[in-house]
């Protein structure tokens, strides 16, 4: 029974991984790609690791997969934040149908 629940978690994980990578291909802009890819792939990988923990149980591999889950949740938003800031400072434009860009307005006002 525990194996079946673990396999269900892993299947949810594959689904969100595929959707996230599809968003990486389809969306038109660096920031939109970053949003779709970071959210979906983080939750997908965490779900796969949690399914692995459910199947294996409280053994060495199970505890390591739990630690890996916490680590991925903590680090991937930080990496996304760093990439977005770097891209905006490097001068990557927003998509042509974007509504507002408050950050660029404030930066021009300062200098």
């Amino acid at each position, binding site marked *: 029974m525990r194996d079946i629940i673990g396999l269900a978690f892993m299947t949810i994980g594959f689904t969100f991984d595929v959707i996230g990578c599809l968003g990486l*291909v389809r969306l038109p802009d*660096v920031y939109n790609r970053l949003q779709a890819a970071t959210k979906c792939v983080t939750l997908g990988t965490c779900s*796969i690791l949690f399914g692995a923990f459910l199947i294996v149980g409280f053994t060495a591999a199970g505890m*390591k997969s739990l630690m890996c889950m916490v680590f991925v949740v903590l680090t991937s938003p930080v990496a996304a934040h760093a*990439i977005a800031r*770097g891209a905006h400072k490097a001068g990557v434009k927003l998509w042509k149908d974007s509504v507002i860009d408050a950050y660029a307005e404030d930066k021009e006002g300062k200098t």
Partner: protein
Amino acid sequence: MKLFRWFLGAFILVGVVSFILIKSLPFLFYPNLPFLGFLGRALYIIILCCIFCLYRIWKGPTSADRIVAIDILGILIVGFCAILTISTRRSWYIDIGIAWALQSFISTLALSKYLEGRSFDE
């Protein structure tokens, strides 16, 4: 024309995924089988995601797109290592996963510093 392209893409994607998964369906009826059948197919799905990422690395218009794709590829490989742990019952694959997550995070930070145009110790 756009709708036609969407239908073509959805048809190809659903076709590939169901072709990968449908041969491993008998594990539902024989619960005592090892999981190698289903999870061995699941590895191909992660490889499909990696091919999407490689497309974005190959064809990204700016360098920021390529860095995003490299970051996502690093997280996907952690999941790959977790599936290898389950399907082969060797516990040291997850060690590779932890090390890969750490190294991928640090390399992403370094690449974004490079993108920002600053030195590493600032």
